[in-house]
């Protein structure tokens, strides 16, 4: 049995390599459209989602959804095929990078508007008595959307098993947190009577511990929870310009790369195995996608 740590490392490493590969593929013209990578943020996906059961629990994610998708579904192949517009893609090429659906996983590219849908899902799962926890991931910038507060209110009133995870990477596209987020993030949820937790580390083991208590609490009480996680993205918002101070990015890369943070805790051999397997898996998935039929290539 693999340890939690090895599993985190494996997931984060696959996600990292997957997204680095996507950026390469973009440059190589193998993908068009857009992509939002979570390079640097892998710990939130791995740490939180390891508590969820993809057969029972539900995730609604946003534009930056690749990490969540892979951590929950392990479907590297479907994702690469989807963003390369293959018939074998998760949604047959229709959705693309930010509109994924597979099993209990959904994502959509309209900021904030995913929260009401997740709230409805949590309501459905409560009624079905499935025991599911519904998790919705939002960014710090998405705290600007009013729908979030409408849903915090309803989730609290109706006691819904909903977990809102704020991945605070301190920027919304080009906008720093201080220009978009006033007051206190956790106090915003607490004001609706929702319990909150806030942590300021990108160490996946700590995130895992915090998320564990949160999920446990939701399962025990059936009530919502609001979790704020500190993180940082190392790559640009989508593929283009990055207006952040390069020194800031370098500093965060040095201090809080979630993969580097735990690398030393693993047995070097195991680690090398994990890395090699991940490299191979992503390379194979890329190759398979490019070899698969292009969606819409042959017209009826």
């Amino acid at each position: 049995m693999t340890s939690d740590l090895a599993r985190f490392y494996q997931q984060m490493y696959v996600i990292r390599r997957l997204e680095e590969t996507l950026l390469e593929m973009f440059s190589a013209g193998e993908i068009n459209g857009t992509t939002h990578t979570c390079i640097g943020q892998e710990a939130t996906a791995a740490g939180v989602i390891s508590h969820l059961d993809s057969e029972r629990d539900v995730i609604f994610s946003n534009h930056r959804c690749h990490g969540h998708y892979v951590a929950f579904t392990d479907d590297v192949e479907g994702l690469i095929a989807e963003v390369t517009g293959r018939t074998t893609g998760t949604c047959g090429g229709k959705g693309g990078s930010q509109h994924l659906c597979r099993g209990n996983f959904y994502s959509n590219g309209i900021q904030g508007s995913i929260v009401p849908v997740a709230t409805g899902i949590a309501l459905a799962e409560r009624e079905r008595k499935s025991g599911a926890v519904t998790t919705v991931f939002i960014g710090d910038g998405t705290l600007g959307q009013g729908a979030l507060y409408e849903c915090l209110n309803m989730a609290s009133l109706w006691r819904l098993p909903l977990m809102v995870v704020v991945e605070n990477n301190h920027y919304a596209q080009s906008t720093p947190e201080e220009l978009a987020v006033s007051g206190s993030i956790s106090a915003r949820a607490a004001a609706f009577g929702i319990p909150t937790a806030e942590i300021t580390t990108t160490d996946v083991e700590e995130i895992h511990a915090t998320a564990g208590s949160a999920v446990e609490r939701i399962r025990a009480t059936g009530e919502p929870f609001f979790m704020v996680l500190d993180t940082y993205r190392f790559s640009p918002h989508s593929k283009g310009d990055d207006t952040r101070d390069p020194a800031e990015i370098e500093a965060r890369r040095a201090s809080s790369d979630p993969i580097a943070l735990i690398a030393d805790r693993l047995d070097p051999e195991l680690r090398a195995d994990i890395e090699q397997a991940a490299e191979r898996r992503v390379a194979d998935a890329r190759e398979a996608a490019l070899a698969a039929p292009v969606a819409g290539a042959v017209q009826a």
Partner: protein
Amino acid sequence: MRSERCVQALNGGLHEAFERRDDVYLIGEDLLDPYGGAFKVSQGLSDRWPERVITTPISEASLFGVAAGMALRGYRPVLEIMFGDFIALGFDQIINGISKFREMYDDQVTLPLVVRTPMGGRRGYGPTHSQSLEKLLMGVPNIRVVAASEYHDLRAMTHAAIDDDEPVFLIENKLMYGRPNRRPENGYIDELSVREGSGTYPALTLSGNDFGEAAATIVTYGGMLPIAVEAATELILEHEVFCEIVVLGELLPLDLAPILESVGRTGALITAEEGTLTAGIGAEITAQVTEAAWGQLRRPVRRVAANDGVIPSAPNLENMMLPGAGEVRDAVLALDPAAV
């Protein structure tokens, strides 16, 4: 047998659907008994099924998403939006969520939800509580827009909407609620013979002379039905001009067949709707019918609708702004000025 009022028929349909299926939920504002919704269509449901009627905060924008979430997970939510004007708050969920999920997720999901809402003016409620905004839904792919009228089987329409696997917007009308829900008896409602179309939300075609020769077809729906009937009656009595009236049940996708069928007989078409003229439902009907029945139309389609503007509160101003029987009559008479 005295007919029940439309509000009772809609309410009865909901009660029956709640009995028949346990995956039906009602969500919306002020739903709990004894209040039972602002227009009382939801009365008695929360007393019988307290767990399946969810009264909500005033959060329309999110309610559309909540309904979508429930539908994604196998329930059949019915969302009551208190006034049709408030659907504007849900447009993002409608356009970028509800109408997208099934197709963009490659048919892995369905969205069987119903949004029920009353539209229409003539009650002095003023600019933000009187509109007929269903026209704005016509441009949204992958949803259905269904219009209740007092001659439709409103119980059956409610069942059909709830059983539908696509998202349905069931457009009701404020003045309709209080009127009897008439149904044809031996093929007649009063003096009008009635043919019922096929399909899940059938259109009704009415004729004052048993489908004998007629000067024009009036296509309408919802709250404009009695106005069209009034105009047609006046045309018979005062001008000896006969019209057929097509009362649509399904606006989107547009139920073209019964319109074409009638236009095949009459050679002329008037569209009559309570919403404002520009980019109204009449525009789409005109475009489709003109293309499909080009050789059969004697004259261009004429559209009767509200003036493009705000619906005033003052009764006279409101009446001037909304289309009445006089406008429908005049549109018919104007078709063949020589003939009158």
